[in-house]
């Protein structure tokens, strides 16, 4: 009797031991996989064969502004540049010198009050399109605290009695105490900004230097290409903003200068009949990661745009229509302070 019991006890002990070592085995398996994967994944992404992945990750770091150093840990400046075209684009070396041919556009819908809203499903992103039939309604407005801080798109839209609006041009980022917190306030526009015939930003005091921009003429044609402030003045342009990327000129897809991964995007374009397209694509959330410039370009083309440019994207991306912000701005506090908007009265 007692021997039997002893035997049973021994067997139980062994079983427990085996069970325990199974848990131990699985735990060390998990731990190993996590550590090993974390280390090798970084290396595979930066040095492996997956060009798209590498390009996207590097561009995201470079364009974040704040975390460029992460990309520099792994790659030299030359390699980063080759991947993203970063410094070429910064120096304006990549876009062609093509200009929109104003005779291609026949403005057909003057005094037409129609605006059409469309939802875009792009798979990995969601977007919104507003088509404004009468291009002469489209104007540029800017922050009333110019030089100090920006305003949010919806407030600028309301102050200008706009029906529809998107955020406009890029701005200088600066922090008021130290630079670590990256608290740009959108008060200082970059490049050209012309509103209601007034030159608000003259491309850093270089009125003759050409920069990728769009401009609206009084008869509703949208000029797209590399222009200087004086070019715009000569062409009678009343409203203009420098842009992030040229997308379409005379129906021709433009080579995207600087790659910047997937992000929220804002774009503006014009169709053959003169109608203006506003586009906003949400990003940086699970339901909508964002789009590349190439995708914005393709989307604009599919929608009938002949000339199109990308405006300031990222957390600036905002679309306003009929009293409400209709997209989902990516920052925690919602809309960002921006220096300018494009709107339709």
């Amino acid at each position, binding site marked *: 009797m007692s021997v039997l019991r002893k035997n049973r006890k021994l067997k139980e002990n062994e079983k427990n031991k085996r069970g325990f070592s199974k848990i131990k085995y699985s735990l060390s398996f998990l731990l190993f996989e996590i550590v090993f994967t974390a280390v090798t994944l970084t290396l595979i992404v930066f040095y492996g064969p997956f060009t798209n992945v590498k390009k996207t990750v590097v561009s995201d770091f470079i364009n974040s502004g704040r975390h460029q150093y992460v990309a520099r840990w792994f790659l030299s400046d030359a390699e980063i540049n080759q991947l993203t075209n970063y410094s070429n684009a910064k120096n304006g070396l990549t876009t062609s010198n093509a200009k929109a041919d104003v005779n291609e556009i026949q403005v057909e819908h003057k005094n037409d009050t129609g605006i059409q809203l469309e939802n875009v499903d*792009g798979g990995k992103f969601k977007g919104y399109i507003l088509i404004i039939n009468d291009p002469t309604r489209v104007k540029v407005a800017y922050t009333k605290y110019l030089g100090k801080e920006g305003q949010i798109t919806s407030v600028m839209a309301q102050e200008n009695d706009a029906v529809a609006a998107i955020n406009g041009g890029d701005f200088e980022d600066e922090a008021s105490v130290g630079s670590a917190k990256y608290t740009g306030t959108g008060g200082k526009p970059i490049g050209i900004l012309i509103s209601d015939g007034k030159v608000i930003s003259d491309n850093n005091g270089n009125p003759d230097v050409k920069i990728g921009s769009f401009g609206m003429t009084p008869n509703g044609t949208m000029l797209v290409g590399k222009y200087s402030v004086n070019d715009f003045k000569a062409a009678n342009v009343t409203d203009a903003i420098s842009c992030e990327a040229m997308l379409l000129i005379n129906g021709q897809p433009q080579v995207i200068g600087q790659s910047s991964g997937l992000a929220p995007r804002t774009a503006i374009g014009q169709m053959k009949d003169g109608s203006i397209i506003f586009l906003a694509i949400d990003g940086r959330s699970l339901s909508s990661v964002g789009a590349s410039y*190439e995708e914005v370009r393709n989307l604009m083309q599919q929608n009938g745009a002949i000339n199109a440019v990308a405006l300031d994207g990222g957390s600036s991306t905002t679309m306003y*229509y009929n009293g409400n912000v209709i997209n989902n701005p990516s920052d925690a506090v919602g809309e960002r302070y921006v220096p300018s908007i494009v709107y339709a009265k």
Partner: protein
Amino acid sequence: MIKIFKHLSIWIVISLVTQFGVLYYIDKYYLKTETTFKIEKVVTQVPKQQEVSINIPQDATKINASYDGKFISYCESDGLKTLDTTNGQIRVVTPDKGNKILFYNWVSDRHRLIIAEDPAQGSGEIQLKSYDADKGIKNNVNNNITWSNSYTTVADIQISQATNLIYVKVNRNSYKSEIYENDVMNDVSEINTTSSRIGNIKIIPNADELVYEDLYSNRIVSTNDKVSMNFSNIQKPVILGADDDNNIYVGNVVNGLIANIYYGQTDAPTSQWQSVKAPNGLDPNNLLVTENGDIYVNDDLKGQVTALKTNQMTSYKGTLIKMTDNEILSQENGKLLKTTYK
């Protein structure tokens, strides 16, 4: 030993195969530039500009409002709600699963709440959420502000939409508070305060700066270490507000009532600040400093709001719910009334 290596090499292969598989999928399919998109027309209705009669629920407590009075928010027994005063639509703001709402505050120029939550039971982390009242969408801001247990409360949230900084005042118990700063990259840091007894806090709208009351030494301290504010003639200074020109508004409290209000920028010597006399002593709860720097004072008994700098009076009906930057919200017989300032 050989057995271990055998296992290790299988593990390595598993990891590498999965990684290459997933990266291959992302590279070839997910990151492939899309060329066709589904576009669908939306029929929109232009909103009617018609005033709707809005009822305030009888058991509503802690009533608050967005800067322009378009939305009011309140608590009922079943939680936090927002009410769109233009159409009467009510939305329930539900905490994330397993959470309770500790505190919320409106962002000062938009229809958005910043909410602090923590686990309804036991201990965990204080989490920040944002809530878009226009769309009813709640987003995560940061899940790890600081630890929390059943004694932890959140006493204030200060938000600057210009700099994207969010400050959270956490009370550990009645004599120990902490302030945490969440920046645009969602990095959290604890503010090194001069004491652990902290009163009101206020963000300077357009600077990386927060001012707080150090209740231990009865001083007002700025997080900008170049700033040192000394109010030689005020025994107990309290923070009343801040405006868009980065002025802060400070009152001296005598017997629980404010006698004078001083305002200026934190880096200017307080002797150069401007001041306004508060008639008959003011209850700090009856006072609002707007973004434009107007100081509005409510008189409950008379049903009147006075702009202190100009002495302009505005009368309203019923009992006050809240003064916003644009208008006075009050209720009479359960109905919401809006009165614009004169």
